[in-house]
């Protein structure tokens, strides 16, 4: 129940940001001088990179306060407010509020991490941080974890803090190549992948035999026992791969073709449902034999039904990843950067990975994992071999107009 105190902390911080934002220079200078958050001392490093016209308030203290003396070092803050998805970090078996990797961070830097599993949906969470970001205020979060397309949107809106990579050597050195320079962030200065995952075929091998092609998702043999995903990019992405198109280069016409292709399956009664994570339960119960699936789900459900398989089809699979992001105006930017750097140590990443079972974006984590759990380290779904990685495609970033048009067409398809 640490959550009970954190909103109060956040409120206090937000008010401070608000005062700075209103241009009360004297007050902000005073607060900056006695503040422990480190915003004042960090501000100079971020100021030059702040895009013109967005959230000018973060520059106010920088331009108005005197230059910090050369000896002044940023210090880690007392707290770090970290928003993440449920079941997405190493967790103590007996105490769900204990996370060894976070405790190690506290031990090293003295920062208490307010870790909150508040994100259940990208759009929903975006709704909660949108108002303060739009107003140029602190969201109360120092790190938020969001999927790449949402990260792309935040970059597009100029609502993220740029990393100071000089304090993040591990991130620079250990980011897996597959995640370097995506279209929305070519310099990797706004996002740090937390976990990746693949969208491919999940099936019950006993009932379907081994599958290698996406086309199986259109097979009448299993009509009514196949599910697709409600996540637009995943469903459309796999369909594009079936049609021989590259999701990274999708055009309007290709998108429309993909929708039409899925409509065939819906009209023929092949698609039982469009689902979120619930397809995994249905695979276990046997109601569904083949699904568009996320790799991590299948690994976890194999414990309940050993015949479940996940395959990266010959046509390819989708790679998606959730990212650590620092929202604009975050009170503890420096500490957030320290944390990201901390996570990008192979030993820490492996510690998280051993519990989470998605794809680790940190180089060297596999070697560390060998020490923890050999099976996991050799699991191709957690550390995909090079030939698999080569077949993973990323859905390209969309403009706002494209996003709304694509979402609309997809909504029509799934009947809502």
């Amino acid at each position: 129940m640490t959550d009970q105190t954190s909103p109060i902390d956040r409120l206090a911080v937000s008010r401070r940001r608000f005062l700075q934002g209103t241009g009360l220079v004297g007050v902000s200078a005073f607060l900056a001088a006695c503040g422990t958050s480190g915003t004042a001392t960090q501000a100079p490093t971020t100021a030059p990179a702040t895009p013109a016209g967005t959230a000018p308030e973060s520059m106010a203290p920088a331009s108005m306060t005197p230059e910090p003396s050369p000896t002044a070092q940023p210090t880690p803050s007392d707290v770090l407010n970290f928003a993440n998805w449920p079941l997405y970090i190493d967790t103590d078996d007996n105490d769900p509020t204990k996370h060894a990797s976070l405790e190690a961070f506290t031990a090293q830097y003295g920062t208490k991490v307010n870790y909150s599993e508040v994100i259940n949906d990208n759009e929903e969470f975006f709704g909660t941080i949108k108002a303060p970001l739009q107003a140029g205020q602190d969201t109360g979060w120092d790190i938020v974890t969001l999927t790449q397309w949402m990260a792309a949107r935040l970059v597009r809106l100029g609502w993220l803090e740029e990393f100071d990579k000089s304090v993040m050597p591990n991130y620079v050195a250990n980011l897996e190549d597959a995640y370097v320079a995506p279209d929305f962030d070519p310099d990797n200065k706004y996002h740090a992948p937390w976990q990746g995952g693949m969208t491919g075929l999940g099936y019950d091998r006993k009932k379907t035999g081994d599958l290698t092609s996406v086309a199986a998702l259109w097979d009448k043999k299993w009509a009514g026992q196949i599910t697709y995903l409600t996540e637009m990019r995943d469903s459309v992405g796999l369909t594009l791969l079936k049609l021989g198109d590259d999701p990274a280069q999708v055009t309007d016409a290709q998108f429309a073709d993909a929708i039409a292709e899925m409509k065939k399956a819906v009209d023929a009664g092949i698609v039982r449902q469009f689902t979120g994570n619930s397809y995994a339960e249905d695979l276990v119960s046997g109601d569904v034999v083949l699904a568009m699936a996320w790799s991590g789900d299948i690994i976890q459900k194999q414990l309940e039904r050993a015949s479940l398989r996940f395959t990266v089809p010959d046509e390819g699979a989708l790679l998606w990843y959730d990212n650590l992001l620092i929202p604009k105006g975050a009170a503890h930017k420096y500490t957030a950067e320290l944390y990201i750097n901390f996570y990008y140590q192979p030993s820490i990443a492996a510690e998280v990975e051993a519990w989470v079972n998605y794809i680790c974006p940190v180089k060297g984590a596999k070697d560390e994992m060998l020490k923890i759990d050999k099976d996991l380290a050799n699991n191709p779904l957690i550390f995909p071999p090079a030939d698999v990685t080569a077949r993973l495609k990323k859905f390209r970033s969309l403009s706002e107009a494209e996003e709304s048009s694509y979402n609309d067409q997809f909504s029509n398809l799934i009947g809502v």
Partner: protein
Amino acid sequence: MGVLIKRYRGAVPYLLLAPGILWLIVFYAYPALQILIASFWSGTLETGFTFSLSNWTTYTDALDRYQGQLLRSILYAGSASILTFLIAYPLAYTIAFRGGRYKNLLLFMIVAPFFTSFLLRTISWKIILGDTGILLGPLKDFGLLGEDFRVLATPVAVISGITYNFLPFMTLPIYVSIEKIDRRLVEAAQDLYAGPWRPGGTIAGLLIGGGLAGVLAYAFGWDHIGMIAAGAIAGTVIGTLFVSQSFLRVTLPLSLPGVFAGSLLVMIPAMGDYVNASLLGNPSTNMIGNVIQSRFLTNNDYPTASALSFMLMAMILVAVAIYGRILGTENLTSTRGL
């Protein structure tokens, strides 16, 4: 003091009403107004929304695009109301008239499952109705059903889910209205030659049974002829054997307020429900609640979502008003016939 009390006596009713009125303002009137305003917005979440009355076209566009889901909501909620009524009336009647000292226990048994979460109860139906689950599995093993037969991801599953989830809302009001009927009235009617109702009951049973079965067949997407025939036969049997003049003239009219309240309590939330359709349905069983949810949360299309919500609310208000006229809200309070 006395003077003060006298002077402000007139304020007492308002003071007593104040909490309720405040509640309505904060949790009903204000949000409703917000939704009304949002329905006249245009723009996107990223660029911001602007209000303009010329955006009334959102309503016609939404109606045009989602009339299928809207009509389906009415059909499913109506079917669920019929089913809950068919289940709840005999149940409430039996408990009230024949429950004896087990009355409270029986009532508790109806309500007990509803101490658990709505979501959990709906998910449990996925387990019960699973294609090879505890219900269909054995039937398939014995060859009574085809291997491809399934209930989940069909309209039947959605309507059954709604029926189950809202059953107590029908049962309890009907129970209350039957329970308070003075049994001496029934006896008096019997003394006055209120015997079996024939052939009226036979004909009424035939028509009502066939009619209701027809509606359900349409909603389920099942074979109409067979279903209507089965409903008509069942209705005829019930009408001929079980419906007496004393029931028709005494018990039924006096229990109508319960039926009225119960059907509203089922129909209204069922119209807006989206949980059953999204867990138990397929892409073509989505109801208007699913659309509103997806417009709000996935597509960030607040204007359309608001317009749909507002239309749903208006539709329900009009329907309730008409329904109240027909069945008569005065029945709820009147003691006519007592």
